[in-house]
């Protein structure tokens, strides 16, 4: 069978096609096989997963991930209205809509008497083993009578807030005593919220807010289900708003951010891809005036993207949605090989067939593929999962594109000589558009060097005058910018909840559940000193609700001080003496221990008790309204079992160190590549090749400085990529220096630059900060590299 455009019969070696087929078939086949043997692949949309994992004790970090996984599934919705009834009705309708959805693991709106009853029942059951610090102090110091008198004062006092339902079995009102402390220290009592009409509500600045809490199932926060669930919540809220005027909804929590960011990411991917494809399509049609380069190049891009996605999925089993946004830049990069091939294919009549074209550009093509590949490969060692995936994605895409250009494109039949003309390179074209000749485009060397020098001086001046802002600094909080509406919702939620919870907390470990709780109690004793010192308002901890068995035993022993008072207590309360006998029996049987899993469902224990992870038990202690982080870091240092967790700060610090290392490695890489280039090229060419990255770096730094972007990990990583890409231009131009086809190469470099700048320029409009930084840095750097390359090499023959 003969193909009109392919010339298999003229193939010089079958290995090219075989290698292409091997690569392009093996990845899909392996991916399909892995679906059966390894498991499914997915698109990851979880916002937190784009962040690097902090360094430190891996065991503790594993425990922290358990905690973080849960908190990433929690969300809070506030309905707001000047009228409480409307706010409550809005929340109630939404509650009805959501309560039967399987994605909601826990959905809570109503805090009816049943919730208080659950607390009371728990405290009554364990009343002999759970006691507050004050109660224990009284028992230990021989002041048990005070507890008895307190109970009588409550029982006979006006408007008692403590239930007397169990006074026959709890004459000292131990459960009620603890409930008071319990309610003021549990999550129920947090912030500005209070119980109103069976719901948690707050009245702030004339507006009523009613809280609805959701814990989504792990499956619900993945992309497809997450979109459905959160989308359904938004749709339900919009419908409710139509029926209830003046009702507002505030959505807070990571699932909503994930939804927003993934929706935004998909929108951006669609826009960038469409713009890049359309622009490349138009550019190719304009330049080549032939369907073959256009169709083949578009197919090449599609195949490259498919192989890139397949390889990333095969290796990581998932691709983060933001990786895809980064990956759209591949459209502009992988088309470069096609451009260099097809400019010769269309415009260089000296080259008679595809193999000659390949021979002409193969050295440059290989050097460019290797240098760009090395730069992408460096990202594999980055701590950001999205960059690792981007690296694999891009290398695979580049490989595909390179193999297509190297192995498949030479099979294409070249057009007849008459058709092998690129109009843009003809004098006729220039005369038509500008009335100028090609010669007028050429600049004397002196001017060119003056322009380069001016360009360097301007860039250095910008850097010099803004040198205060040039610093290595990472802040992962700045990597995500929420929308105005989400920001408003989060600020309102923080105002209502007012937990005063900082971004840091403690994780306490122990060899057993008991040891973890004992260790936590030791930390709490220390934290209480800081409460007394005014450095901390309060804290949330498991052992406040569920003490260690050791403490429960001590409490039980201390409670024995009440036994001699039982008879008289019952007498005062008007109960016959036999009740005291029953009380003694209940006390004897009352040494039962409670554990974290026994705590009331709404006590908040689930957010604190991590449990067993890899054979070690962990719990979290959350400080509320702390004064100074340094004090608490120091406290953690006092105990071997206390781990201070401030992921943001730890990651920032790690990234600062990593960024410094990368900067040094970058210099080292530049030196190594420069030495290699010195061996491969004449010294004058080497000098030019090595100078281009320097111009690129200076320009990129100036762009970053003007945009007030500190030298964080992402700008530096982008510089490395720009370095790899910018070498391409100068390498191709140097390769063509001694050939008569320099015009064609110049056009190819121009097209290559335009397509790449289109892709990365589009990224600079992204709402995702890392993508935006990448786009702006690479665009700035590549522009400088292209201009300097053209000025160094670009004189028209």
């Amino acid at each position, binding site marked *: 069978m003969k193909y009109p455009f392919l010339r298999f019969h003229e193939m010089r070696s079958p290995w090219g096609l075989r290698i292409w087929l091997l690569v392009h078939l093996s990845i899909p086949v392996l991916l399909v096989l892995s679906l059966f043997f390894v498991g499914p692949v997915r698109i990851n949309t979880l916002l937190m997963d784009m962040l690097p994992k902090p360094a430190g004790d891996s065991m503790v970090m594993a425990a922290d991930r358990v905690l973080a996984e849960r908190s990433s599934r929690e969300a809070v919705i506030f309905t707001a209205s000047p009228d409480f009834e409307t706010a409550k009705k809005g929340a109630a309708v939404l509650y009805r809509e959501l309560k039967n959805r399987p994605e909601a693991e826990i959905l809570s709106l109503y805090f009816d008497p049943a919730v208080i009853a659950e607390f009371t029942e728990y405290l009554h059951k364990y009343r002999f083993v759970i006691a507050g610090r004050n109660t224990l102090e009284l028992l230990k110091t021989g002041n048990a009578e005070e507890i008895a008198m*307190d109970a009588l004062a409550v*029982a006979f006092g*006006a*408007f008692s807030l403590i239930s*007397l339902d169990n006074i026959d079995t709890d004459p000292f009102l131990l459960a009620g005593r603890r409930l008071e402390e319990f309610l003021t220290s549990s999550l129920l009592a947090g912030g500005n919220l209070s119980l109103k009409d069976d719901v948690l509500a707050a009245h702030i600045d004339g507006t009523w807010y009613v809280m609805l809490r959701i814990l989504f199932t792990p499956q619900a926060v993945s992309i497809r289900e997450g979109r459905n669930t959160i989308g359904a919540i938004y749709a339900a809220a919009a419908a409710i708003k139509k029926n209830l005027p003046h009702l507002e909804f505030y959505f807070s929590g990571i699932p909503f951010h994930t939804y927003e960011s993934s929706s935004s990411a998909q929108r951006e991917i669609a826009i960038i891809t469409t713009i890049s494809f359309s622009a490349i399509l138009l550019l190719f049609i304009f330049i080549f005036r032939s369907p073959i380069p256009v169709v083949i190049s578009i197919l090449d891009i599609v195949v490259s993207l498919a192989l890139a996605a397949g390889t990333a999925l095969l290796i990581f089993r998932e691709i983060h949605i933001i990786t895809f946004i980064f990956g759209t830049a591949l459209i502009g990069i992988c088309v470069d090989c096609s451009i260099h091939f097809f400019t010769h294919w269309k415009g260089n009549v000296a080259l008679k067939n595809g193999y000659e074209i390949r021979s002409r550009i193969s050295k440059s093509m290989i050097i460019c593929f290797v240098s760009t590949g090395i730069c992408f490969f460096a990202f594999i060692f980055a701590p950001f999962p999205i960059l690792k995936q981007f690296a694999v994605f891009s290398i695979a895409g580049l490989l595909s594109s390179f193999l297509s250009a190297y192995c498949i494109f030479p099979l294409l039949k070249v057009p007849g000589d008459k058709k092998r003309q690129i109009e843009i390179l003809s004098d006729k074209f220039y005369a038509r558009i500008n009335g100028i000749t090609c010669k007028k485009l050429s600049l004397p060397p002196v001017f060119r060097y003056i322009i380069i020098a001016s360009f360097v001086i301007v860039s250095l001046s910008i850097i010099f005058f803004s040198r205060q802002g040039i610093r290595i600094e990472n802040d992962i909080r700045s990597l995500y910018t929420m929308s105005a509406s989400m920001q408003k919702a989060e600020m309102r939620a923080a105002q209502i909840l007012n937990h005063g919870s900082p971004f840091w907390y403690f994780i306490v470990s122990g060899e057993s559940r008991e040891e973890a709780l004992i260790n936590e109690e030791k930390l709490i004793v220390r934290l209480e000193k800081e409460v007394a010192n005014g450095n901390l308002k309060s804290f949330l901890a498991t052992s406040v609700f569920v003490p260690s068995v050791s403490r429960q035993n001590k409490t039980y022993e201390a409670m024995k001080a009440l036994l001699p008072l039982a008879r008289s207590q019952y007498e005062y309360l008007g109960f016959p003496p036999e009740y005291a006998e029953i009380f003694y029996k209940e006390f004897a049987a009352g040494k039962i221990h409670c554990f974290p899993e026994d705590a009331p469902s709404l006590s908040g224990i689930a957010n604190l008790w991590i449990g067993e992870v890899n054979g070690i038990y962990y719990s979290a202690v959350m400080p509320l309204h702390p004064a100074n982080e340094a004090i608490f870091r120091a406290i953690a240092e006092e105990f071997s079992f206390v781990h201070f967790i401030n992921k943001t700060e730890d990651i920032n610090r790690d990234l600062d160190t990593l960024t410094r290392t990368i900067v040094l490695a970058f210099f080292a890489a530049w030196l190594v590549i420069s030495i290699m280039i010195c061996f491969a090229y004449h010294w004058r060419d080497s000098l030019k090749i090595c100078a281009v990255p320097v111009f690129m770096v200076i320009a990129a730094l100036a762009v970053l400085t003007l945009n007030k972007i500190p030298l964080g990990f992402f700008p530096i990583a982008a510089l490395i990529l720009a370095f790899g890409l910018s070498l391409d231009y100068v390498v191709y131009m140097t390769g063509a220096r001694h050939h008569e086809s320099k015009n064609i190469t110049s056009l190819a470099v121009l097209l290559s630059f335009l397509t790449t700048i289109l892709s990365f320029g589009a990224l600079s409009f992204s709402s995702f900060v890392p993508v935006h930084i990448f786009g702006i840095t690479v665009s700035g750097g590549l522009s400088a590299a292209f201009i300097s390359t053209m000025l160094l090499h670009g004189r028209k023959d």
Partner: protein
Amino acid sequence: MKRFIAGLCLFFLVAAVWAQDDIFLHPLKAPDIDAFRTTLGLLAKNQIVRGSFEQEKTLSRHNRSLKSSGNFIIASELGMVWETLRPFPSALTLGRDYLVQSRPGGQRTVLGAQGNETFIRLAEVISMVFTGNAQGLLDNFEVYYFGNAANWELGLLPRDRTIASFAARITMKGDAVIRSIFIYEQNGDTIKYVLSNHNFPSELTEHEISFFALP
């Protein structure tokens, strides 16, 4: 004969319940609004009301009652104090945005507004009754009223389910002052207050003011 006695007991029980619930057959309607407002206006007339109370808590589950007595102060600007003197002394101060429990031995516990809004709001609701806050009562309760300003009976059903979990129904009787209060709790317990020795000083004594001072 046994059946007759049982029937008689049932009749008296139903009659007692009927009598008790009688006020709730008289929802506040337009013709009674003026009388209702006049009644509350009279209650609110005095800035400070001082008197004695006798309290009886009936614990239905245990078939027991706890009786106590003491003094009360209602100061419209500051709040209320319920000072129990017998059999065990204690005091409860219901301030504007706080609640102080004074226990034997002088120990005082403050429940601030933050985190304790439920209790504070309960205190506010109680204050509304004593200070004659008509609008507050209408907003927070279904109001039942019978009689006139000289001899009235008031029934209150909390609209707020959280408040209702503490006090399912409240009935009050009085004339120019409140004479008795019944609070019916969800669990069947009742608290009965009989108020007497009302007097209306122009200002509080230092001892009385100290109840409102936060420790």
